[in-house]
């Protein structure tokens, strides 16, 4: 499933638009960047409440397909600009981490 297809089916808003045609491999949850760095699978949809500039760096270096900010987490404008410049897709939802991750997982496995 691509990011675009996911956005159409779930309550997600686009904060920064990268390549929305990217295929998502699986869903990944973690707020500790140190752990996400070592464990986030390539092409994953990463659900987190940690929204800072380092989140972008970790997303980029682990080659995550997109970052999904849960619980209504907002990014600084500067960070949003940086995500746009770097072509990193950042989505947002007011739902809790688990609920959103479960919904993404269900969509991915229903294919």
């Amino acid at each position, binding site marked *: 499933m691509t990011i675009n297809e996911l956005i159409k089916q779930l309550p997600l808003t686009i904060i920064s638009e990268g390549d929305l045609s990217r295929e998502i491999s699986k869903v990944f949850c973690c*707020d*500790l*960047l*140190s*752990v*996400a*760095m*070592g464990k986030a699978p*390539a092409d994953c949809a990463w659900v987190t409440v*940690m929204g*800072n*500039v*380092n*989140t972008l*760096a*970790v997303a*980029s*270096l*682990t*080659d995550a397909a997109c970052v999904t900010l849960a619980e209504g987490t907002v990014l600084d404008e500067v960070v949003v600009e940086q995500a746009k410049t770097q072509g990193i897709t950042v989505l947002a939802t007011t739902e809790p981490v688990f609920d959103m991750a479960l919904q993404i997982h269900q969509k991915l496995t229903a294919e």
Partner: protein
Amino acid sequence: MSDQTGSAGVVLKYTVSPDDFTRAGEASSKVKNILKQMGISPDVIRKVSIAMYEGEINMVIHAHGGEITVTITPQEVLMELKDVGPGIEDVEKAMKAGYSTAPEQVRALGFGAGMGLPNMQGCTDEMKVETELGVGTTITMSVHMEDK
């Protein structure tokens, strides 16, 4: 940054700024893009990116920045991270997952969980830590190119 191509491969040099978390990762991103352009396998790129970013973060947190030299040859990507920071008191402890001496403000950013060195070791084929208290630390890491 400077780079040169010679018989020893491509050599890239970077300076890591001290205490600037917003810029940590710049060098790793640049290396990642260069490796991509060179057509290196995604798995090697991922390992190099993670190991180098962790190293960069460590240099920002603990060592007031430092110098990184990356050498790319057909056989491997060799990274040398050199700082003149305080040195690591107990390398064996520092290599254990979960052991951390990072300050509270670093933990608030999502780092400092004691995963840096273990992650670096996990991503690399060879890793050597040379450290002396009050003098500094040099970490040398190698990620081998996959057999084609």
